[in-house]
């Protein structure tokens, strides 16, 4: 049975309800409908977040790369696999694939490692951000470097946990 069938089933019971019970029943229908949208929305959010992050940070990588320094390689080696695994995990959640939970767990683990290195400003993040502050024309580079490190870690952390939760839920009802 599809979720639409279940909503039809709930609709067929609506005439039994009156007053507040009817309102509660309608809220329940809305909740059941929303639950079906949760996984696609979270997966789409991860895809948008990863692509948006890549688009928003590519200039930082290019600035360091054009300066002739090599610290961008270490930073890319840290972030690219995380982003790729995130895209794969989100795609598997969208497809309701049985490997979705394993992929989401791998994404969460990579994000956790990246987040710790970013927040603590440890290598390879620190040499990369230090290089960027030296070569960029951004007059507030120090502040922006810290914002990038912390905000990226927080955003990726929320995305990874949300994806892991919806993948776990998918696995539970499989």
């Amino acid at each position: 049975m599809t979720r639409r069938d279940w909503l039809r089933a709930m609709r067929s019971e609506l005439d039994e309800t009156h007053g507040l019970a009817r309102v509660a029943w309608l809220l329940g229908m809305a909740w059941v409908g929303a639950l079906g949208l949760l996984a696609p929305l979270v997966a789409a959010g991860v895809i948008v977040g990863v692509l948006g992050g890549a688009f928003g940070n590519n200039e930082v990588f290019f600035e360091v790369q054009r300066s002739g320094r090599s610290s961008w390689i270490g930073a890319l080696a840290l972030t690219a696999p995380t982003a790729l695994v995130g895209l794969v995990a989100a795609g598997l959640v969208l497809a309701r694939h049985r490997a979705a939970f394993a992929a989401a767990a791998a994404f969460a683990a990579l994000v956790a490692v990246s987040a710790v290195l970013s927040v603590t400003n440890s290598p390879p993040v620190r040499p990369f951000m230090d290089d960027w502050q030296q070569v960029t024309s951004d007059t507030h580079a120090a502040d922006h470097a810290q914002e990038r490190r912390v905000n990226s870690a927080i955003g990726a952390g929320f995305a990874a946990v949300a994806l892991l939760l919806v993948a776990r839920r998918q696995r539970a009802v499989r």
Partner: protein
Amino acid sequence: MSRRHSDQTRAVLAELAADPAVDRYGYELAKATGLASGTLYPILMRLEQRGLVEARWEVTSRPRHVYRLTRDGLAAAQAVRAGAALPLSGKQAVA
């Protein structure tokens, strides 16, 4: 392999097991268990996906969805009543 289930799921299984030969309506189950529809129906959906509950449309002048336990569902309800963990369906057990 077995899986622990929530008190709400146990309540639904127990209610359906009270008279397993009788088809039950969703609203009737909601009233009997005290569960809101937004809680009851996700539970029914999971139980149906696991092969523990059979759901079908009752063909009358006003069609309604009815539910009853499958054989596996009855065994699960009896296990719950005995205080054991809820067994997974055969398909999940070999997965």
